[in-house]
């Protein structure tokens, strides 16, 4: 067992974990963050994506001990219980989710993409959006609603220049 400190959604906590324990399991079990979903546990589907020090990472391929001292952010912290982030709102409008299982992973992958495009003040074309999504699998929507939601969220951010 190894003692580590994680800052999860702003909450700093020290805990003892086995070296082999996955970040996804620690977030789900120790921090009670049910928005972290495991779809394949092989790094192929993107369902478990969280941010580690601001960068999207697959929490099913990351050991918790690798994150000692780091800051982790999950979907629970993106737009709160009402899902108020611009991308989440666009997901609702564009019907970008059905069963919702892959959805937190998509949000965590795409929120920084939306941010980066807004910073560049650039609306990407459809192929660029689809490429940005290529590490996440959705089995319900056929992706079209998600593409549309990303487009809407970026357009809105460029239009209003609102902070994230």
């Amino acid at each position, binding site marked *: 067992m190894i003692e580590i400190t994680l800052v999860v959604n702003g909450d700093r906590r020290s805990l003892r974990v086995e070296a082999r324990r996955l970040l996804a399991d620690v977030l789900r079990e120790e921090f009670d963050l049910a928005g972290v979903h495991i779809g394949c546990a092989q790094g192929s589907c993107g369902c478990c994506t969280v941010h580690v020090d601001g960068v999207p990472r697959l929490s099913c391929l990351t050991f918790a001990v690798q994150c000692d001292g780091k800051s982790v952010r999950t979907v629970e912290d993106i737009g709160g219980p009402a899902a108020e982030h611009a991308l989440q709102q666009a997901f609702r409008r564009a019907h970008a989710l059905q069963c919702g299982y892959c959805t*937190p992973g998509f949000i965590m992958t795409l929120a920084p993409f939306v941010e980066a495009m807004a910073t560049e003040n650039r609306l990407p074309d459809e192929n660029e959006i689809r490429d940005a*999504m290529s590490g996440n699998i959705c089995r319900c929507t056929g992706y079209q609603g998600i593409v549309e939601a990303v487009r809407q969220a970026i357009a809105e951010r460029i239009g209003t220049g609102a902070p994230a």
Partner: protein
Amino acid sequence: MTTAADRPRHVGARVERIEDTRLLSGGARYIDDIRLARMLHLRFVRAEMAHARILGIDIGALGDLQHPTRVFTGADIGGLAIKAHQDVPEFQYSEQPLLARDRVRFVGEPVAAVLADDPYIAEDAAELVFVDYDPLEVVASMEAALDPASPPLFDGWNGNVFVERQMKGGDIERARAAAAHIIRRTYSTHRQAGVPMEGRGVVARYDPADRFLTVWSSTQIPHLVRTYIAEELGFPEQRLRVVAPDVGGGFGVKGQVFSEEVLVAWLALETGRPVKWIEDRREHLLASIHARDHRHTLEAYVAADGRILGLKADISVDVGAYSTFPFTAAGDPGMAAKVMPGPYDFQHYEATFRALATNKCPIGTYRGVGRPSAVFAQERLMDDIADELGIDPIELRLRNVVRVFPYTNALGFTYDPGSYAECLEKARELLADDIAEAASLRGHPERRVGVGIACFIEQSAHGTPDFTRRRVPIETGYIAARVAMTPDGGAVVDIGLQSHGQGHETVMAQVAADALGIAPGDVHVRHGDTLTTPYSVGTWGSRGGPLGGGAVHVAASEIAEKLRAIAAHLLQASEREITLGGGRAFVTAAPDRHIPIARLTRAALRNVDRLPKGMAPGLEAQCSLDGPRDGTYSNAVHAAVVEIELATAKMRLKRFIAVEDCGRILNPLVVDGQVRGGIVQGIGSAMFEQFVYDEECQPRTVTFADYLLPLAPEIPTIEVHHIETPTPLTPLGAKGLGEGGAIGPAAAIANAVADALEVPVSSTPLNADALWRLINR
């Protein structure tokens, strides 16, 4: 200010989904989010050989773990099994033991269950269990299953055919005699899996204080799971609750009762502690259920003008090692035989269909059930006929589709009104430029373009008679809904469906809101829990909208009548004059004379002295709505435009178009989502997804690195066009649409490839390897 409640009608409007907030925020609770005190975690030891005797199971190494564990094997569970018998004399009966007893029949079959306090320890422990096998000859293909020299999979069996039967109508010999052309072809679709992003999982807890057993399962059919567990374990069903929490996709895969559901319930009773099993992705691909894997030989009898006079079909399905509950091993071949006449008008049809047992994962229900394979064969055949007769493929279909409704086909199934010809005409119009481009690139040395279409019908929302005819373990096709209003003017809808992404919470709220004159946001929809919802068959067979929505409509309308009577009494008007809407009851001709609906509900539930004399208190109604005898028939044309690079065999899907008719559209947002999602699964079936076994039935595609699902960059924008032909057979005029999207793509894409390369295409998948062979044949 206008509120949602003031909108005249919610059904048919693009209402955003009520359930989205919790799904977007991490607030949803799926099966793995259930955590109980003292819970044991289950890990399976699964068969590593496709066909073998179990000589012994050694758990001696578990002592090294230094953690308490318990192991259960087939010897511990008595005769507990999944029993899925089709009650016809031809059917060879078998059972799937919950844990293999003396023999394993496919790689992935559960052999032992290991329990520990921690899931990591349970996994460690399962790896230390040693199973000694004596290998048996493997039955690896349809040919082997039909070979009398192959060993039967079950003792006492005569060969490896679960069942072989026939369906016929008209006089096939007359059609053959009258035919100017006889066209015979064989088509096959490969084996694949359904693959919801959330795998399966079961949690069970027994409470000795009130002798109550609760089972949580990631299932589409909680009531059927409850009944099966109660019967198999001899447990009183009134003390058994099955809950499907938020379910991360089902697609029919979770529309079965699985051995794990019964076993986890049994283990909770046996150990006295809550037990949890969460399937991992490898287990899902290996050992949940598979789909497709059909081979159809069709013989069409065609007149000189292209009119089809009759069709003869021979249908084989490799259904794997066990019969699955509730649709049995006969489900897929029977469905394919039943729907093969499709949208075409001919009165002579004969099908022989069989389910073949092999040492593979069992076949079960997956979006479309039999129909994607049937439509692949049917629609490839139409293009092959068109090619042989020199008729344009769309024109050939227009000469053959049913145009006069209701129509009774050769097997006696009656189709409700549809728009088969209109959808074809619309597709032709949309494809004009692509057809021209394909023609201009014929013989091009580097690249080709092809256009393919598939025209099909989807029998949906089938009712009880359809199941009694099939003699499978489930005899009913109804959905029940109960609507109850609360004193504050809101309503609760309890419905025997289960939602795994279809938006039931929103659509059912729209339907209830329209009938009751309130806003969808004031309706709370509960589903997926046998404790709160009326007994029903669950979510499958595209029955949510037409039957679920219909049941809510009928029940809510009954309450609305009572609301109108109370309003008439309080407003001193006649009932006929009262309209409900915008949260109020008002006199239709004088809207200023109104009363809030909350006042009416308060009167009915709390101030009953204000009710009309003699009226009983309460505002509750229930409706059990059975499907029509032959179901409803949605129809669609799918069209694919492909571009193929000859040097590399790389294929790009340039366009995919759906022109579809699902009757009355309840929520366009949801309908488009279902159509698009289904189509992309169908594109996966056609081009990417393939479950591969080697010649010893060892699986070779057990991760997403080998089993390829479609990703966003490979998928074009799916263009969806609607024609609405309401059906007179359901209360709201809606037909089913959940499966249709997945039915057409393999046929449309195969036809496009055949068009591009000017070669016949007879099988899926159409991946790079297959295309290379088609280009270089």
